[in-house]
């Protein structure tokens, strides 16, 4: 319990880093870059988040998961603020997050606009199936070496 000890910002960031992204649970919401700021004051904790896509249905789940995770750690007063500028970009994905995406079978975003290689067999012989995928942040690609389809995390 942390009732009497002053909360540190780093502590809050650590706790948030254990909240999984609801759609891609191998990365945390901190890895994803949606947590933009943490402010601690006597009045409580203020967390600023930003949406990945304007219509992303995971955002309300993320807000709920943050409140639950911090409440479980004993944080009493949690305020969430949504900020849309500067707009979220895949540049904010952490290195740890990118590596975990690939291990999980999702090719991480590349500035070139397509995956560098197949997350399964690592071949660079890949082609796009569709610009969109199972969630707003993904597109569908296929590997022409191992013939497996895979998700690519869109670069925006």
């Amino acid at each position: 319990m942390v009732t009497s000890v002053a909360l540190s910002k780093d502590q809050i960031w650590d706790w948030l880093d254990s909240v999984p992204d609801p759609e891609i649970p191998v990365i945390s919401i901190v890895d994803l870059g949606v947590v933009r700021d943490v402010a601690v004051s006597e009045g409580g904790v203020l967390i600023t988040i930003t949406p990945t896509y304007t219509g992303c249905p995971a955002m309300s789940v993320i807000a709920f998961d943050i409140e639950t995770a911090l409440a479980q750690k004993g944080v009493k007063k949690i305020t969430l603020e949504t900020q849309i500028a500067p707009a979220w970009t895949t540049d904010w994905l952490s290195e740890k997050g990118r590596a975990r995406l690939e291990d999980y079978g999702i090719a991480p975003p590349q500035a070139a606009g397509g995956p560098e290689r197949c997350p399964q067999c690592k071949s660079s012989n890949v082609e796009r199936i569709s610009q969109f995928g199972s969630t707003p942040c993904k597109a569908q690609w296929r590997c022409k070496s191992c013939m497996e389809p895979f998700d690519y995390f869109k670069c925006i």
Partner: protein
Amino acid sequence: MRDTTSALFEFLLRQGDNALVLGHRTSEWCGMAPVIEEDIALANIALDLIGQAKLWLEYAGEQEEAGRSANDLAFLRDAYDFRNLLMLELPNEDFGRTIMRHFLFDAFQVPWLEALSESSDQRVSDIAQKASKEATYHLERSEYAVIGLGDGTEESNRRMQNALTDLWPFAGEAFRDDNIDRAMHDAAISPLPSMLQPVWKIKVQSTFQLAYLTPPDSEFAHSGGRIGFRHTEHLGHMLATMQFLQRAYPGATW
């Protein structure tokens, strides 16, 4: 003459209603598209548009200061209070026509949102910057699809040409300036829509050339949607479906 605040409210409704109405029409494809990849793509595009609509309408509600939320504006206004372009409320018809409408709109929306990113109104600029990234992605897809279908089979070319011929007289409405546009331009909140027409024309004409499609040689444009003067008979039917739940069960949430 209206003051800047109520002109800004009208302006925000136009942005929000364009996104909402096209977003709803696009969502009608969910489970109906010709192939699963297209079904998923259309559902995702619908989601983006509805997300953008929420941002615009939230701000509109705040400007109006009448206590209306984005949901109230979306679900409790009648057809004559909507400010969307007529083209966006037309029924989907076939897949080719859906793609053509997206392309004509996306080709406008990309330079428009880029211009709004420079708005003197910080909130307008913030929303536009966010939406602009999504619109750019949508245009990439709709442009590619127009070329693919136009330069496809005899049938796909015929259908795309029909879609273009039918939609062309609706495309020009976006560029008709009125008093609201002039008030926004004077306040440096937005450019005049007419200022974007040349850029739009170059974009669509170069794409149609690659797609073996020919737009009608006419400048005629149906209008009335964005000023709320006259909608087509289709909008009311669309709203009857879209608004049913909130009308039948006021305040319902999940």
